[in-house]
């Protein structure tokens, strides 16, 4: 793993628009230096999740420092878990974050942009649940 590689982020949502919008927002806030790859909707464009899309997104997100995946709701988690369970030889470290979708991707991406390693990026995403909005 190269020391200047940045942790990549994959957003798994039931909605392609939601994943793309969250990725766009996080990219703007973090300065556009992090790979944030949306994987939303089914392969035929309906609401749902797609293991094939998640797999492609993981490859695109990885630049050698690992990938943190943020799921939106329930079955997105199942899709990712099934995929990670059967993928025995991932080329990189992949972590599934238990985090709020919007706050989690913003915190994770900013931490990655600041040079955080995968442990720091995962922690930032998961700590996002404690952040107060008001």
């Amino acid at each position, binding site marked *: 793993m190269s020391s200047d590689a940045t942790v990549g982020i994959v957003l798994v949502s039931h909605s392609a628009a939601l994943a793309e919008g969250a990725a766009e*927002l996080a990219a*703007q*806030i*973090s*300065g556009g230096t992090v790979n944030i790859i949306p994987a939303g909707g089914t392969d035929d464009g309906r609401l749902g999740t797609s293991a094939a899309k998640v797999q492609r997104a993981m490859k695109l997100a990885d630049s050698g420092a690992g990938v943190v995946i943020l799921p939106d709701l329930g079955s997105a988690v199942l899709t990712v878990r099934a995929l990670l369970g059967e993928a025995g030889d991932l080329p990189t470290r992949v972590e599934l974050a238990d985090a709020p979708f919007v*706050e989690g991707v*913003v*915190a994770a991406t*900013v*931490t990655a*942009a*600041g*040079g*955080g390693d995968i442990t720091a990026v995962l922690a*930032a995403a998961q*700590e*996002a649940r404690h*952040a*107060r*909005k*008001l």
Partner: protein
Amino acid sequence: MPASYEQAITLTGDLHARPAGALAVAAAKFSSALSLTVGASSADAKSVLGVMGLGATSGQHVTVAAEGSDAEEAVATIVAILAEATRVGA
């Protein structure tokens, strides 16, 4: 040699999400602990959600404080980002 350093700035605009992100990314490059204080609220400058959660608005005084070997440079950098990002029209 660890040092403490702080400086206050009066915001000339509201602290929005994008500058909060730029601030947290910049803060992460320093080894010093860095905090922002607005009134009774404080946040870790390296936490974008913490910085946004301050809800800092135009006219408020923000105190930037750092403790560590690069404290002075860290405070100067963060104050400059706050000044630029909240400049009217930025």
